[in-house]
């Protein structure tokens, strides 16, 4: 019988409850490469891989102690050469020679283990892929939520900006009306005093009254500009678009600045190669051109020149350009961007009169009737302001 146990084609090992190996068969010793004396009397755990030792203490032994048997438990035994070999253990617990013993049959499972390893790896890979997918999915969801939030924020910001803009326009309109009424009173009563309605006026008094009158007019102009701009910006400006011959516009406006041009000793000329007709609001176009000519006169020193030129737009077909070119002080590249912003006076240090709204109003008016207003300039050499207008005919 002992001979049979030694030679059966599986390992056999018997250990007591103190963990010590009481019996081990030749087959198992051979598999693990130990001498009998190295194993018998030693704890079963001492020939296990460390992970399996924990498993033995937490799973295998409690199972045996509680149920009297354990079936198909996988453990790794450590061979004498340090390698770990997988075994399936079937164990029964019973009493022998007056104490409890645990008899174990151990089957090597190298081949099966390979399949199991592959299975575990495949399962882990699948789980990892699944986890990655879930993470990616979550990230997409988060991004979608974030985008939605950004969209909402943008909407809110735009609504706030629109609200603020409306409030500003309303404030400007109301304030301007409130200011204009007393200013008109100042102007009217100054005139009455000047006319001697309230008694004789001395020369010194007349000078003072003249200054009051000029100040009043300046303020009134400023307020009118503010009112105009706020009206245009709020989209309440009405345009009466007709066919406008540009030569007529130039002829109508140029004489208005002639006195100042002559007074400053500036030359002016007009270059119109063809009789262009554009679609525009004549009155507003004249206002724009007058504004440009007034500016050009202001910033051009004595001996300089102003040229009004009407030409075909080289960039856009069916568009005509009206240039107002001067030989003035010019505008630096960075300031050219600001020149159309309200209340910006590029040459504030020049102590030129004006509200700083002229160019802003001009461009708003131009854009309100399908035209545009742009600037090219070189400091020290001069500026060219260009109104671009849609053409009706170019004979």
């Amino acid at each position, binding site marked *: 019988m002992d001979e049979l146990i030694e030679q059966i084609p599986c390992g056999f090992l018997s250990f007591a409850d103190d963990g010590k190996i009481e019996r081990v068969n030749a087959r198992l010793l051979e598999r693990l490469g130990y001498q009998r004396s190295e194993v018998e009397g030693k704890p079963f755990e001492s020939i296990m891989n460390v992970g399996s030792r924990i498993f033995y203490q*937490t799973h295998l032994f409690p199972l045996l102690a509680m149920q009297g048997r354990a079936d198909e438990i*996988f453990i790794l035994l450590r061979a004498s050469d340090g390698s770990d070999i997988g075994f399936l253990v079937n164990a029964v617990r019973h009493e022998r020679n007056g104490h409890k013993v645990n008899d174990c049959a151990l089957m090597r499972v190298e081949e099966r283990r390979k399949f199991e390893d592959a299975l*575990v790896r495949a399962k882990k890979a699948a789980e990892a892929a699944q986890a990655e997918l879930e993470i990616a999915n979550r990230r997409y969801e988060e991004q979608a939520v974030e985008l939605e939030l950004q969209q909402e924020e943008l909407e809110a910001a735009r609504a706030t900006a629109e609200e603020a803009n409306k409030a500003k326009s309303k404030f400007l309109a109301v304030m301007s009306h409130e200011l204009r009424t007393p200013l008109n009173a100042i102007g009217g009563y100054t005139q009455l005093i000047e006319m001697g309605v309230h008694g004789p006026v001395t020369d010194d008094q007349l000078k003072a009254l003249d200054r009051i009158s000029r100040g009043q007019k300046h303020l009134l102009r400023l307020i009118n500009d503010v009112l105009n701009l706020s009206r245009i910006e709020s989209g309440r400006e009405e345009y009466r678009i007709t066919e406008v011959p540009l030569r007529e516009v130039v002829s109508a406006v140029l004489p208005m600045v002639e006195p100042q041009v002559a007074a400053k000793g500036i030359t002016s000329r007009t270059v119109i190669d063809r009789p262009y007709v554009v679609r525009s609001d004549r009155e507003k176009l004249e206002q724009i051109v007058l504004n440009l000519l007034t500016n050009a006169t202001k910033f051009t020193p004595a001996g300089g020149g102003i040229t009004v030129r009407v030409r075909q737009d080289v960039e856009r077909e069916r568009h005509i350009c009206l240039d107002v070119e001067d030989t003035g002080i010019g505008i630096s590249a960075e300031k050219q961007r600001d020149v159309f912003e309200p209340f910006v006076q590029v040459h504030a240090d020049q102590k030129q009169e004006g509200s700083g709204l002229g160019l802003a109003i001009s461009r708003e008016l131009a854009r309100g009737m399908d035209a545009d207003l742009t600037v090219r300039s070189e400091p020290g050499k001069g500026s060219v302001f260009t109104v671009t207008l849609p053409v009706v005919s170019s004979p």
Partner: protein
Amino acid sequence: MALGDEVTDIIKRNNVHVVGNGSQPMLLAHGFGCDQNMWRFIVPAFEDDYRIVLFDYVGSGKSDLNDYDAEKYSTLGGYADDVLDVIHELDLHDVVFVGHSVSSMIGVLAAKREPDRFERLIMIGPSPRYINDPPYVGGFERSDIEGLLETMEKNYIGWANFLGPVVMQNSDRPELAAELTESFCSTDPVIARRFAEATFLADNRTDLAGLQVPSLILQCSDDLIAPRAVGDFVHGSLPQSTFQQMQATGHCPHLSHPDETIELMRAYLRSPVPA
């Protein structure tokens, strides 16, 4: 019956059983890999003198797997919550808490939170940290724990890893689920793995400080899971602890050497509660 329903929730969740004729409660907490059945050789010795409370941690034995919460049970604190739940549910006071292995530390965590409920702790093979952290000797390297997880995986592979989840969902064949429970104490390989990680990768050394409840440390001989150096560390960290070296070898003296275990527990319980 409202209270009854509530009791049933915790009782059912942790598969709580109460036996014995005594009045002072003795709460028996099993270790990792096992369930309340592991106390079967101990219970008869204390039945006459104590009200013995047995339970399974969620994920072990016949606990309710529906109550498993991966986040809660990722640390021992989640298990300590459940110990206190059981104590509140049964309104236990002056508890003698007996914890095997990882349950020793779970008991420490619970007793630190509500010291008034506990009279003393009996810790069988306690370890606050299993992984070496020089100069601290825990007994294991991290790679050893990986080896345990691999061995667990192999043992759960055949039926649990692949068939298990399918079988468990087959509610019309409950006998299959019951069979799985019989062969291993943890029915779900994923839960078992998480419990292993919460147990063996944890570091509860700092939790020992400030424990107000007196304790007994039962230190086995040749215990590879909780070696003598670890027992000494626990004893050194707990001023109110009593250290008892056992003849019993291994890590489960209540299974392998129940007589010695019972004798040492009795001797400690007979001694007056240390001040």
